């Protein structure tokens, strides 16, 4: 026992790092060594984190080019066309505006992912939320900003409510949220179809075959940033979306709640033992996810359509899943992902004008997702192995250093 205490060399930590760094000297200063090691490991992680997406994009582009070649087309022209098209200011505005909806939807999905919850229901949540918010907004008659606030709050509440059903079913009845949210998407469609009937709350404008929820008063339109007459406006809600991203980052990484949430996602059992009420956490994050999902329809509602109608944009929730995956549930990553997907979506149409199939963009999206996740996983595993090996090597070096100094007692 006494010996063990001696075998606990006060230079152990420092020694390991120094040993690995210099390769010769086993001695070093404990604290300094540890900090240096820490920095180095985080820099490593940053490098590896960047390696993933870059590798993936390259692979995806190469694969897409192969597809193009196989169908007898130029393997590069489509990219040039898309970039050229994106040089137009109006296309840029379009991309940014679209990205804001995508971003919010992806954040909603990511909140769930962080908890290992798979909220496929973002699509139903945002549609139901947008429709309810539009209804309230058109009829509440509050003065401008107040009405906007009301609309946004209603949207969040309704989104949270719809997601909450899945949350309750999961926590009380053990129903997999994957299945329940798929069902709830379909049910939301029916519910909206019912509510928007003129017999219920809907409006059929004269001469139109559309159904709407009535127009928001123009005082409730969220002011945008006017770019130019041709390009139109960047939605003001884009900034709200950015704010949501900041809040997402802040809450997840800097608050106790965020820690609990991430811990639950990383290991539900460990989190439970550490005092997190896993069930409540499931419900809470489902509610948050739904509330954020509710926001996803707001950029369009408040910035463009000013009503919910039969042709309100659908499918954002599913795109959100893709984007959350691309962005690795990271606030900045998701922003890039949202812009990338919006870019592909919006510039694809130019391919049609130029003799290419715009489905190339869809194929590319699929390939990007696949190569991104594959490369993330590969890089992650490589990183983990490398780190383990490094730790092992450094400790071995330290052990060698101590044994040579102490000699094994006979």
């Amino acid at each position: 026992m006494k010996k063990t205490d001696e075998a606990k060399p006060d230079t152990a930590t420092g020694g390991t790092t120094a040993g690995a760094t210099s390769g010769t000297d086993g001695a070093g200063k404990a604290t300094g060594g540890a900090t240096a090691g820490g920095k180095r490991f985080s820099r490593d992680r940053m490098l590896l984190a960047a390696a993933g997406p870059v590798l993936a994009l390259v692979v995806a582009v190469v694969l897409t080019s192969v597809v193009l070649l196989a169908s007898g087309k130029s393997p590069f022209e489509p990219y040039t066309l898309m970039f050229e098209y994106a040089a137009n200011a109006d296309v840029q505005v379009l991309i940014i505006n679209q990205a804001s909806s995508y971003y919010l939807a992806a954040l909603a999905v990511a909140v769930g992912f962080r908890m290992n919850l798979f909220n496929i229901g973002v699509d139903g949540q945002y549609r139901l939320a947008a429709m309810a918010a539009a209804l309230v907004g058109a009829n509440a008659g509050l003065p401008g900003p107040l009405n906007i606030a009301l609309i946004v709050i209603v949207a969040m509440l309704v989104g949270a409510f719809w997601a909450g059903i899945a949350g309750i079913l999961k926590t009380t009845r053990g129903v997999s949220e994957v299945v329940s949210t798929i069902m709830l998407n379909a049910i939301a469609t029916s519910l909206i179809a019912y509510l928007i009937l003129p017999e219920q709350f809907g409006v059929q404008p004269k001469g139109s075959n559309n159904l709407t929820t009535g127009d928001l008063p123009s005082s409730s339109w969220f002011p945008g940033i006017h770019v130019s007459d041709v390009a139109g406006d960047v939605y003001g809600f884009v900034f709200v979306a950015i704010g949501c991203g900041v809040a997402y980052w802040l809450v997840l990484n800097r608050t106790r709640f965020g820690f609990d949430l991430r811990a639950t996602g990383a290991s539900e059992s460990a989190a439970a033992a550490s005092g997190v009420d896993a069930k409540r956490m499931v419900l809470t994050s489902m509610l948050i996810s739904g509330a954020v999902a509710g926001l996803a329809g707001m950029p369009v509602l408040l910035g463009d359509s000013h009503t919910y109608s039969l042709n309100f944009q659908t499918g954002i929730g599913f795109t959100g899943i893709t984007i959350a995956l691309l962005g690795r549930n990271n606030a900045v990553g998701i922003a890039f992902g949202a812009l990338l997907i919006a870019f592909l979506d919006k510039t694809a149409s130019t391919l049609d004008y130029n003799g290419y199939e715009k489905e190339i963009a869809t194929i590319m999206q699929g390939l990007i997702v696949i190569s991104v996740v594959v490369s993330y996983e590969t890089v992650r595993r490589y990183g983990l192995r490398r780190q383990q090996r490094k730790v092992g090597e450094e400790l071995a070096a330290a052990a060698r250093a101590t044994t040579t100094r102490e000699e094994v007692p006979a």
Partner: protein
Amino acid sequence: MHAIVGENGAGKSTLMKTLYGMHKPDEGTIAVDGEEVSFHSPADAIARGLGMVHQHFMLADNLTVLENVVLGAEKLYGIGGKARAKIKEISDAYALGVRPDVLVEDLGVADRQRVEILKVLYRGARTLILDEPTAVLVPQEVDALFDNLRELKAEGLTVIFISHKLGEVLSVADDITVIRRGTTVGSVVPSEVTARQLAEMMVGSELPSPETRESTVTDVPMLRVEGVTLTTEDAEHGARTVLDDITFTIRKGEVLGLAGVEGNGQTELIDALVGTRKPDSGTILLGEEDITGWTTRRRREGGVGYIPEDRHRHGLLLESPLWENRILGHVTERPNTKGKGRFWLDLQGARADTERIVTEYDVRTPGIEVTAASLSGGNQQKLIVGREMSHHPRLLIAAHPTRGVDVGAQAQIWDQIREARREGLAVLLISADLDELIGLSDTLRVIYRGRLVADADPATITPEELGSAMTGAATGHLEHLAEEGAAR
């Protein structure tokens, strides 16, 4: 019968896995029956008459014993009646008592062990590798197992087995190989060494012991558990009582050791104390407060420290850096959070304190940014102990605190517990290592099928006696009538 011994992480399992074709050796040769072989997969090894029982059971819970046994060897006797007959035959021949049609999840550890052995025999293995087969068995079961093994040996089979229990190694092995840090440090014959010498060969240093001498037990009760009963109900088993009227008290400065074969309600008791499971009846008092209705978080804030039995599942976030693991479980406490309502994480504080723990508890790591997964099991355990001790708990629930930890770290952890105990910590110690249990505890209790069936004085009890209570053979107060001091 050839025994292999060595510290944790010495490479015993790795060596065996290599023998069994699960890893490829970088260098060196393996010869079976004098013939050099090279295995690409376990299938090759099996074909060569090797069979392995792994340290962690390799059984599929939701399959029947029969299915588990025939898996991979369906060609031999099919998967139906012929296979069932063969299993019965082997089981009877070696008195294994295996029932082919029950689900594995309904079996206890000892039965599972026998299924594992049967699995190997079923394949006609001539060489058996057993990786720590006795770690989870009580002494009586160990004896039964060694009886089985001796019978196999008599049939001309070769047995390689790994164990940390040097006593049993010395009593049953014909040859012993000691390895340390991946290399052989020596081969000895049991008759020529003592347990102490063997241990010193293993670690290359002197042996620690878990003995606690001077008593620090006070009169102040810290944890009072009264009539706690818990039934579980699941689709698989229906309702059953896993904790039955559990009552005990731990006083300040006392270590209460709870002995019992795994699966007799220890896990559920811990869950009830930590608050992850609600008992159906009974009360739990911490100090003077009734904490029965408290959430886990509140209990932990209130001074309950917890060293979980399965650190990977309950103690760590494997893919998070060490400093985040330091926050785990104490996210509402200094130095992890700050601000009003302790809302904000205090990253600097947590990092700095992690550095402190790493230094004070000798966690061998190059830094606090590495993930917990990249630390060895022992170092992970040290980090957990350091974390729990840093919050000065009033009650420490320590489940197998030194499982999978090498002797050096073991001693440190024991020291930590003893030191805290001196300052009035109450400890509930649960361990499968009876020496540790007897050596560290002030009071001993035995849990059997959800009930506290026996108590004993650690100063006089022997592991064998304790073991017999653990199998339900003896109940009540276990009194040792023979001469004092015979206890180890």
